[in-house]
């Protein structure tokens, strides 16, 4: 048995989605609005999920989100949520998994973690 250690430090340009990731770092939800059919999608994908148009304009959402489904791991929670104003939904990490709530708000992602995170609105319900 031979042991090898491989350390990778990726530098990943985000191209056309750069404004979205920059907004995300500030805790802002920047969505795409289709110039052809008007669909608003968050997270964006660079192509309209309804009509495949590529003429898309940036539009800012409130960042509020409704929880559709939630799954809990031993130490984390992830939800499928729909951000207010968006047609599609998104899989997001939960910043405060001890809170049980059907509402949340986009949270600033931890440093270098570019994915989506929400903070659930604390309505007094706690995970058992």
């Amino acid at each position, binding site marked *: 048995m031979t042991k*090898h250690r491989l350390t990778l430090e990726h530098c990943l340009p985000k191209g056309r989605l750069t404004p979205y990731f920059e907004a995300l770092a500030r805790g802002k939800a920047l969505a795409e609005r289709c110039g052809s059919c008007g669909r608003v999608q968050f997270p964006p994908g660079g192509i309209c999920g309804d009509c495949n148009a590529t003429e898309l304009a940036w539009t800012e959402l409130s960042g509020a989100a409704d929880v559709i489904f939630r*799954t809990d791991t031993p130490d*984390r929670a992830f939800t499928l949520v729909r951000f207010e104003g968006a047609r599609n939904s*998104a899989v997001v990490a939960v910043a405060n998994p001890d809170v049980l709530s059907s509402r949340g708000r986009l949270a600033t992602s931890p440093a270098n973690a570019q994915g989506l995170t929400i903070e659930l609105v604390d309505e007094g319900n706690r995970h058992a």
Partner: protein
Amino acid sequence: MTVCVAGGAMTPFNRRKDGSSWRDWCRDAFAGALADAGLERSAVDALVVASESDFFTLQLNPASMVADTLGLLGCRSCRVEGGGASGHLAVHAGMAMVLSGQSRRVAVVGVEASATHLDGRTVGVLLSHSFDSWTDGFTGTGSTSIYALSVMAFMERTKATANDLARVAVRNRQNARANPNAHLPLDIREEDVAASPLVSSPYRRLDCSPLSDGAACVILGRPEDLPATGRGRVRISGTGAANDRARLGDRSDPGRFRAKEAAARRALAAAGITADAIGVAEVYDSYSGAQLQALEALGLASDVVADERSGRFARRGDLPVNLSGGLLGQGAPVGATGVAQVLVTAQQLLGSFPGLNPRSGPRCGLVDSHGGIATNCAVSILELQ
């Protein structure tokens, strides 16, 4: 034109602790397939290698290395990748080579070292990039959490329960007990599933397929290019493939496997049969609930939950599913998984599978695989000639 499975072989799927290498596994599977098909190495004129990730083997350009390892020189060779469907899509690619006349006898070798070359946590991190790495991957959303969110949508719509999922996990592990190559042949009950550690609700450890090491090989060719073996032959009578949106949230119903529906329709149409002609199936059960979601999408049940509860998918049922144990029981070395699914289905139709064979002697079998969360789907129909 007809393309047949000339022969095949697989290594045991397990967590290797014997010091053997992934190259050894490829060599063993290929040698077994040649012997099974009654062919010499020199008869093979093309190689398709299926492997999901170079991170596991630390070998880029694996097709060239596998060809060299197998002593295949001067051959057409390439690698096919499609996540969990890699092996199955490689079979489709090999079939296309035969159908196009590019090759006469194609060896399809699937391999993955998912279990022992890296620690489990690292493998989990890598596999989380099987979805959208810019969203799911960077938040650390693992495969199980994404499948969990999907099955919750399925359960809400169909009223399937955690016990329905557990029954699948139990039955596939029980089926695997007769399979000498199976990774997890377990004598368990539904209560064992419920008592196993939580991974991502509602999924518990025994609802999840294992990370396995192993390789599998099938050799494809036209009947006129293959030696007589004195036994029946199985042909691939139809194939279909289709993709879905990569992000679960971009789908209109996150609990429904739409791409699998399309792939199955195409495969059945190509074979000129309807779903009720299928007498045995190997279905992609990466998770217990995913098997029910797949059976629904494949059109193999009008009410999948009622059929599951009635025992229709058990060995004595109308449509035995995953007699090999499936991914849950036989195991899942990703690149090898789909190749093995095709192999064991062919063997089940011939009645030669070294585990449970269908009791009714069906003529047609269905093989189903996918990558991502039913994002890249492959379906094949196998038929006794």
